[in-house]
């Protein structure tokens, strides 16, 4: 599937060359190559533990991938770990239940020591406990007890945060099978592994090292690890082709597997003069193109806004900076703006429940099993065991522990605490043209005050803005007020008022946060004059109908809401929306920002 420079230039929309079938075939081919390298890496002596992340939903494609992988692994045992694996199981622990049942001390060997000769498989790693993943990462760093390799499956959607960043940072191989279809996966079995000579030690030039470092920096990977992964992979690829020298082609392949899938943004581009046509690709060898383009990335001035690049990366902009091969690779993997956002770890939705704090007012203890995070309530346990002692004498085995109280698993009581959820303030700001003219600066002032107060309450804040045709999440829930202020300052207005879209996004974010264990409050700043419907029609009656419907949904979901009316006149529309939402209504005209902040505070506290 070669894409020439001409195709990119003439077409204008390079993405059309990559239709669904082509993307599927490319991803599957990449998967085969990367997996073989992964297995090659396992065989290397004194090498880091190979870690591979595989994005794929459960289904026939993933099953096919798994059967191909296991065929290549031949007889290496596999240790499966589900998402509810406890951190304590990494280390050796006492098996309380078995010990109590049998009357003897039964210890469970730690996962890490058990799995030293096998491959660890983390199924659904995206909803594993962060503590578990991070503890695993610490053990990986320690290098004392390691499995042969680690495979992690990620089933999360595109708009949900996936696997914990600490594991992603340490993983050298990143695969995406989400665009592969059933037919492509079934088409042909993978060829067997070729014989490799592990004693070749490929060399690399300084210029090529610069290339690697520059690519990582350009794609927003600031950790030191990805660059070292690229080097390692390039060496493996080079060894596979029995070359003693690492070439740019090897490096490109390594970047495809190790960098592009975790890229956080497009590289910064030099400023584009308004009237010039995009520069045609100079007639250079690919090698020179690579080097010239990445001489001084820190000299590039303008950053691309999310607005400038639509979901598909337009070749005209990118080709003047990236080599056409790299652009090709990006398109081929189906990498879009959304994937970039996902990789920064900030899409606003979390896949797993945030651990409830152990603190809070104590609730009565109840029956439970001992596992990490659960505190034994010894008095309650003993109290429950006491009456049964005489009866249990009959079950005493042997002479040991004659004086011990016989405690059976069903006696165990664990402490519980009230979970005091942290709150998240979701600001939904009307950034339409009408607001910009009127009271956007006052609205900003009110929000700044509220932000200052949320700092002392340790609340999370999120910022959504609706304008033109839809609603954007400018800031996913964060405690970093510095970022909140930054977003607020750069907030600008214009375009129509898609109020319904704003409410819809805000509501879905609130529901997600609620699922994750936080208490959401919607704070809507608008003048209520919606003129853009959900379907994008510029019709006032439709827009208002949609907005009222959304407001009703908010009320139904029982999510606290506050409506700050920033209209010039006391609009009945703002009040109407507030009534439908069953939220608190505060009018900004004729009042100061302080009054608003007071009103909001009292509303939150009720």
């Amino acid at each position, binding site marked *: 599937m070669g894409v020439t420079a001409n195709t990119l230039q003439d077409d204008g929309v390079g993405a059309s060359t990559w239709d669904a079938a082509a993307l599927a075939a490319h991803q599957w081919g990449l998967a085969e190559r990367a997996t073989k390298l992964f297995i090659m890496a396992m065989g290397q002596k004194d090498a880091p533990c190979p870690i591979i992340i595989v994005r794929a939903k459960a289904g026939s494609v993933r099953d096919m991938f798994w059967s191909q992988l296991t065929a290549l692994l031949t007889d290496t045992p596999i240790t499966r770990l589900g998402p509810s694996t406890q951190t304590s199981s990494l280390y050796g622990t006492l098996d309380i239940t078995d010990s109590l049942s049998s009357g003897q001390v039964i210890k469970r060997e730690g996962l890490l020591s058990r799995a030293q000769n096998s491959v660890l498989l983390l199924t659904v790693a995206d909803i594993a406990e962060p*503590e578990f993943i991070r503890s695993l990462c610490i053990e990986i760093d320690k290098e004392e007890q390691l499995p042969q390799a680690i495979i992690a499956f990620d089933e999360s959607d595109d708009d949900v945060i996936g696997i914990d960043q600490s594991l992603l940072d340490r993983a050298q191989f990143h695969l995406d099978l989400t665009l592969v279809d059933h037919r492509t996966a079934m088409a042909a079995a993978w060829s067997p592994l070729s014989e490799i000579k592990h004693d070749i030690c490929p060399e690399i030039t300084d210029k090529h090292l610069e290339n690697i470092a520059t690519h990582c920096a350009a794609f927003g990977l600031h950790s*030191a690890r990805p660059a070292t992964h690229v080097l390692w992979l390039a060496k493996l690829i080079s060894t596979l082709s029995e070359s003693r020298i690492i070439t740019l082609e090897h490096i490109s392949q390594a970047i495809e597997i190790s960098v592009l899938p975790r890229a956080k943004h497009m590289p910064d581009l030099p400023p584009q003069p308004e009237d010039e046509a995009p520069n045609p690709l100079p007639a250079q060898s690919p090698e020179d193109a690579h080097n010239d383009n990445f001489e001084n990335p820190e000299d590039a001035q303008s950053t691309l806004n999310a607005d400038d690049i639509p979901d598909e990366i337009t070749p005209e902009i990118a080709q003047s900076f990236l080599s056409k091969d790299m652009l090709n690779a990006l398109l081929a993997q189906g990498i879009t703006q959304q994937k970039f956002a996902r990789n920064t770890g900030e899409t606003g939705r979390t896949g797993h429940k945030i651990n409830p704090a152990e603190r809070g007012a104590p609730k009565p203890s109840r029956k439970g099993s001992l596992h990490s995070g659960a505190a034994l309530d010894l008095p309650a346990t003993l109290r429950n065991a006491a009456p049964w002692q005489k009866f249990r004498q009959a079950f005493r085995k042997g002479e040991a522990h004659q004086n011990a109280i016989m405690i059976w698993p069903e006696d165990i009581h664990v402490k519980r605490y009230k979970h005091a959820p942290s709150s998240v303030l979701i600001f939904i700001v009307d950034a339409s043209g009408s607001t910009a003219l009127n009271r956007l600066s006052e609205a900003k002032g009110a929000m700044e005050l509220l932000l200052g107060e949320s700092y002392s309450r340790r609340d999370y804040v999120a910022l959504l803005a609706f304008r033109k045709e839809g609603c954007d999440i400018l800031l996913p829930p964060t405690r970093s007020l510095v970022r909140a202020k930054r977003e607020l300052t750069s907030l600008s207005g214009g375009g129509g008022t898609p109020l319904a879209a704003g409410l819809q996004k805000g509501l879905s974010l609130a529901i997600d946060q609620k699922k994750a264990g936080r208490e959401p409050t919607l704070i809507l700043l608008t003048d209520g004059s919606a003129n853009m419907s959900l379907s994008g029609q510029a019709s006032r009656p439709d827009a208002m109908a949609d907005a009222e419907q959304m407001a009703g949904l908010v009320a139904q979901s029982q999510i606290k809401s506050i409506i700050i009316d920033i209209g010039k006149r006391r609009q009945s529309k703002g009040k109407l929306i507030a009534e439908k939402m069953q939220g608190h209504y505060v009018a900004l005209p004729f009042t100061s920002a302080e009054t608003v902040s007071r009103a909001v505070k009292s509303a939150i506290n009720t």
Partner: protein
Amino acid sequence: MTDKISKRRPTFPFAAIVGQEHLKLALTLCVIDPSIGGILAVGDRGTGKTTAVRGLTAILPEIEIAQDCPYQCDPSPNGAKCPECAANQNLKTNYIQQPMVDLPLGTSEDRLIGALNIERALIDGIKVFQPGLLASANRGFLYIDEVNLLEDHLVDLLLDVAASGWNSIERDGLSVRHPSRFVLVGSCNPEEGELRPQLQDRFGLSVDVITPQIIADRVEVIKRYDAFEKDRAAFTAKWASETQLMQKRIERAQKQCAELSIKDRELTLIAEICQRLGTDGLRGELTLIKTARANAAWRGDHAVSEDHILDVAPMVLGHRLRRDPLDDARGGARVERVLAQLAQARGAA
């Protein structure tokens, strides 16, 4: 499958870490004078924070501990000891490397401070203390990843123990007190929100740990890592002389530190700096005195001079400035500005 990695392979040499001069200096000064009170390392992941702590731990001299003691008690006559070791007349001793404990995100309170040994309680019916991570960290380093995400009361507890040097447990019918002295290093990613000011203030020093901005530096990082992975023994040997130099310097500085004098003129300067910056309380001044002294000892000088103070003022005071939570300015930059103003004012006088 091949036998992968043998235990206790050498760690990446501290002297071979590219850049990160502020972090390396802060760690060194905390080793010279542990009462400085720990470091808050602010920066992204993958910038070499744990590498630096592990590297330093590896080059420090081995310590003598009481054998069979879970707290690594200090057998020397004035060393802090747990009640059992204090009562024991014939302590058997052993030598080990200074411990480094890495605290993962989401560590429970029980795992941190220790708890009732469930096994002994339920099976044998005896009340025995199960030491936690604070016990393992005694006389070493405690590294906390993303300290800003740790529950407030745990950070509180850690800072208490770090300041007093003792861990006291009163729960589940246990009453235990054991020594727990460590250099506390907390990493913090500012994008995720900050520590409360009361907690932040109790860290002795704060440093920004950023990825090298120059491509050449990034290349050097990859090169050194690659060379290290290829042959750890050879790489360590290559840096051996630099490492030994460091070890000697640290040893000498530790001895000299207590004897260094600081004159009134320098004390006045310190007070002036803190007053201009508007730092709350006296902790800033006291820490700046200690850190300047450790700095002078590290440089092998015989008295604390103005340069020693100005050198370390940003890392001591950067996180103690009264601030607007919405203010973007990095603390270190503000300190430098004030120092420049001060220099101008004194030049004019």
